[in-house]
């Protein structure tokens, strides 16, 4: 289904923001000022955005350790995210969560998740809520090729089929789980076919192509909203940085990465494929510029912001205790 100008620009903006956010984080991290583990999403932007552009604020997503892209795509505040990653009180989680636990339920983001395979069963819970409350909502969970091997993921798939839940299982196949290739860790020839065998429609798409991801999700979301149950979408893309910041990436060569950046860049592919009558090069460049500015501002604010007061250590464990 053809998107209108506004939709296209909005989608591109989201992808552009993710790219700017992650590439800047890569630089910031080198200063040593960012605590903890950081996993960057660059290279996979078309998946998060292609999926989330089909979702409403009242729909929910479950995410992974590599969650920044999902957060931005679902509408989390970029300044709040950056402050969170720096461990500041202004952060979306007041510095208690960090990169791997950014959440904002008010926009339907159920949290990045540091447990591989954690999201699918939480997301079917959100789908159950939507189904039970009959509010027309749906849910999506993001899981990597590596996480696609966890029993929790399979169980969520079977449960979703049995209860006919309005959910989309998005498998982001970026070729690696940490340093291990998908072909080694996934015994089956095909992740999507494995999901299909659970009894749901499952498709494979090029995860570098926003339009493919968007269309597959549109169909899945429509089916889910109509009571047609779950769908799996396996999206193939690549991550442009290491598994985590600090990864020497010995499992692939710098030349291979450079080649991926040249040929498999979701932003470039969007620019190549988009209808130039709806989105001009100038407009897209302006968006890139604005994204970098926004992220630059987010970094400046995050750096300037205060750490949480020590009393906060003890708050928010329970609603009441």
């Amino acid at each position, binding site marked *: 289904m053809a998107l209108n100008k506004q939709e296209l620009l909005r989608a591109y903006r989201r992808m552009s923001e993710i790219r700017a956010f992650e590439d800047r984080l890569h630089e910031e991290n080198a200063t040593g000022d960012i605590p903890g583990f950081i996993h960057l999403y660059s290279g996979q932007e078309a998946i998060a955005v292609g999926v989330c552009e089909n979702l409403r604020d009242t729909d*929910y997503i*479950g995410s992974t350790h590599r969650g920044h892209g999902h957060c931005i795509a679902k509408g989390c505040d970029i300044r709040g995210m950056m402050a969170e990653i720096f461990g500041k009180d202004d*952060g*979306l*989680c*007041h*510095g*208690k*969560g960090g990169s791997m*636990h950014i*959440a*904002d*339920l*008010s926009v339907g983001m*159920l*949290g990045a*998740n*540091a*447990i591989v395979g*954690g999201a*699918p*069963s*939480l*997301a*079917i*819970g*959100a*789908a*159950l*809520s*939507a*189904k*039970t*409350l009959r509010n027309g909502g749906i*849910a999506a969970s993001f899981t990597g090729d590596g996480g696609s091997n966890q*029993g*929790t993921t399979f*169980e*969520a798939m*079977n*449960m979703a089929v*049995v*209860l006919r839940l309005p959910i989309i299982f998005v498998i982001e196949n970026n070729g690696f789980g940490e340093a291990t290739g998908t072909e080694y860790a996934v015994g089956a020839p095909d992740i999507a076919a494995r999901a299909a065998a659970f009894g749901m429609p499952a498709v494979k798409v090029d995860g570098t192509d926003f339009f493919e991801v968007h269309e597959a999700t549109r169909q899945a979301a429509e089916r889910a909203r109509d009571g047609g149950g779950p769908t799996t979408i396996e999206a193939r893309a690549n991550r442009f940085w290491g598994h985590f910041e600090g990864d020497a990436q010995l499992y692939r060569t710098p030349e291979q990465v450079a080649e991926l950046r040249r040929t498999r860049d979701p932003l470039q592919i969007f620019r190549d494929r988009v209808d130039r009558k709806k989105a001009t090069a100038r407009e897209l460049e302006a968006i890139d510029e604005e994204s970098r500015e926004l992220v630059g501002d987010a970094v400046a604010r995050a750096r300037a912001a205060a750490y949480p007061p020590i009393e906060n250590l003890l*708050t*928010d*464990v*329970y*609603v*009441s*205790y």
Partner: protein
Amino acid sequence: MTTSKKTYREAVKDALCQEMERDETVVQIGEDLRGGHAGTNPDLETKKVEAFGGVLGVTKGLWTQFGSERVIDTPITESAIIGMAAGAALTGLRPVAELMFMDFFGVCYDALYNQAAKFRYMFGGKARTPMVMRGMIGAGFSAAAQHSQSPYNVFAAVPGLKVVVPSNAYDAKGLLIQAIRDDDPVVFCEHKTLYDTKAEVPDEPYAIPFGVANYTRQGTDVTVIALSAMVGAANDAADRLAAEGISVEVVDPRTVSPLDEEGILESVAATGRVVVVDESAARCGFGHDVAALIATKAFDSLRAPVELVTPPHTPVPFSPKLEKAWLPDAARIETAIRRLVAN
């Protein structure tokens, strides 16, 4: 408020049923809560038969009253059950997930331990996860090593969880209603040997607040702190000793987390002698937690060593004779009390 004699099983069902009536967002999730989906008996469809109603009949009747959308039978898939409950709780429902036997937490613990329990804190206070995980604990049924455990000590160690261990039908109903209304994730432990015990239970709904110990018996010589099935054993021991003029106070904390520290310390301050009875573990158990509380905060009023009555550091044996020896009982509690008063 009218009351009637009800079993612990009926009390649990009462709570589930009345909360479902009161609040449309309460749903039950578990295995064979109804039983009979895709069965071959035509009555299942035509007469809406519940083939199980829970393995021990606790949820019998709920499906008939509330239907498949609110009493949700699932495949055997605990990690999806608990994970789904956690996700549903974040997004508008108040799910009550049944784990059948708490021993099964090993296949699904992440959803509770790293997810539900931590959402609120990790998300900076922006989440509520009003879910209940209920299931059976306890030895005494010859159910052997994988169906007889009481891991409430493990749950209580997790910040973010509340842990409830009712010892009688009255408490079971009131605490379960509180658990369902509570905005935090709650683990609700039903001792399988208590299901047929009876008490006077109000017919109307009522909530018992968490963190308030119940003085099931007042006394002056020794404080016995006991939970769940051990409360009965403690009272039996106290009965026997009363004849000899030994006055025993039996305190049932009812919730392991939050724990009524004040209530416990007050009693210990008065008696100066304490026996802690606990079925959970011989190491790092609830009993050790209470003993540590006393050693750190009531040392000055203590007149004798703390006595700890737990099972030995072994799995639960199958053979009834061994299982009986494994389980703390009135005789062992009595011995411990006698040792204290002799001190």
